[in-house]
């Protein structure tokens, strides 16, 4: 059983209203010194059996086409054993 973690983040130049809302709330809660907050998504895929190179390529493709939208987002794929 292998876990694959795909992190998806908005590209830095894209406005992140959620992050901004959290930043505002942090201020109200008295946490100072935070200059930026960005909110991202994380997908944890549990895979039965082995993760071959071919499967990893497939997962990368899916991360690029389904799990993220390259017009506005970047992603990373990590394998955890």
């Amino acid at each position: 059983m292998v876990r694959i973690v795909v992190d998806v983040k908005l590209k830095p130049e894209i406005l992140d209203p959620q992050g901004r809302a959290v930043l505002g709330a942090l201020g109200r809660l008295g946490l100072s010194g935070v200059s930026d907050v960005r909110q991202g998504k994380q997908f944890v895929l549990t895979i039965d059996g082995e993760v071959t190179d071919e499967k990893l390529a497939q997962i990368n493709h899916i991360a690029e086409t389904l799990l993220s939208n390259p017009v506005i987002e970047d992603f990373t794929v990590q394998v955890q054993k």
Partner: protein
Amino acid sequence: MTARVGVVTFPGSLDDQDAVRAVSIAGGDAVSLWHGDANLHGVDAVVLPGGFSYGDYLRCGAIARFAPVMEKIIEAAREGMPVLGICNGFQILCESHLLPGALTRNDHLHFICRDQKLKIENNSSAWTRDYAVGQEIVAPLKNGEGGFVADDYTLDQLEAEGRVIARYLDLNPNGSRRDIAGICNEAGNVVGLMPHPEHAVEELTGPTTDGLGFFTSVLTSLLSGQAVNA
């Protein structure tokens, strides 16, 4: 004789019956299309209706883009068939790369439902012929992820080519770049629109009947054989 306009139902489509009603009121023949059926059943144009296809849990439209019927629609759209994506449909068209840019979470983070004033800026697309350029209309807007984004180069290009179909007036309800409410592709047959013209076709249930023009436009375009920009 009139044209056959397909309305796709994805799991989670919500405004499909409204789109069917709007097509009928405009005088067209509405044909229901099923997401899992890779067949357009001979329709002349397609509406991708509003809703939350597949729950829209991932990104709006991200999963619907891979539906079997979409393969056929993408093919047909490239060959010039008129396609209108409303709200979720607009999101699906962007995810399918038939239209540039993407739709992101509203800048105020809330779902918003309001009667929205718009200005029509292009009346040469297959879906806007019956409007006048500069015409102001009111139609319901209802979305949680309606903020149109694209890089400046793409935005400049859209403007330069006159591909901004409609812009928000009075108030930008979701943080859309340059107040963009709708755009079209280069050929003018594929249109994406955030507000809901299908909810503005009857005095009784809509704020206006201003939305009817989208549906009559496509019938005009089809019957005149000019679905695509000359």
